[in-house]
């Protein structure tokens, strides 16, 4: 079972990837009137996924609308600096998770190798 091999990191990587898509959608819609920015609450999503929900289900249930610091007149709630910050934070999280998975693979390979 790949899930057992990588522990929580497999799910975390999937959630990170989904969150990246959601934040990229926000950045793409920075100029769309009436667009409401969304984000995945990663902590809640990983908790739900850990409790046995599928990653899609976990991501969907923890997707929330962002509360703007300063709402703009056209109803758009994207604030680019926040989105860019969230995007880079998420990218760092993705890299970290990937590193955990990589080291797990290395461990298993070392165990399999015949020297």
């Amino acid at each position, binding site marked *: 079972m790949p899930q057992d091999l990588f522990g929580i990191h497999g799910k975390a*990587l999937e959630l990170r990837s*989904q969150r*990246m*898509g*959601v*934040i*990229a*959608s926000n*950045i*793409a*819609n*920075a*100029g*769309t*009137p*009436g*667009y409401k920015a969304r984000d995945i609450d990663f902590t809640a999503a990983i908790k739900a996924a850990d409790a046995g929900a599928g990653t899609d289900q976990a*991501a*969907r249930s923890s*997707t929330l609308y962002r509360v703007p610091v300063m709402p703009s007149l056209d109803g758009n709630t994207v604030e*680019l600096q926040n989105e*860019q910050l969230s*995007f*880079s934070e998420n*990218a760092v999280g*993705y*890299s970290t998770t*990937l590193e955990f*998975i*990589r080291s797990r*693979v290395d461990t298993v390979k070392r165990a399999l190798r015949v020297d």
Partner: protein
Amino acid sequence: MSGPMNLFGVAQRGMSAQLVRMNAAASNLANAGSVSGTEQGAYKPIRAVFSEDLDRASGLSTVAVSGVMREKAAAVRQHNPDHPLADENGDVWSAPVDENAEMVEMLEASRQYQNMVEALSTAKNLMLETMRMK
């Protein structure tokens, strides 16, 4: 686009939308100062109108250009009896283009285009890193 939307589709359509916006601003700038003999014939600035396009299957939303519309600004009347296009009152009608606003529009479009490219390259690097995992 066929199949579920992915990050590249979102970025591609977002960038295309910004390009349409930039072209609209460029058209307006090119037509700034053009005159016409009638009020109806004067150039009206065009503006791209965006709307959200949500792909329910993947939860991603991208941008759709719902239309390129004419602004409602009234043509500027100029009294210039020597102009070959002048009407019987000696007036010509010039395009109501605000050059400063158009420049700001272009700047904003190019900044958002850059943001999209930046986000896309980060995402692409992470995907490649995942693919190359030994």
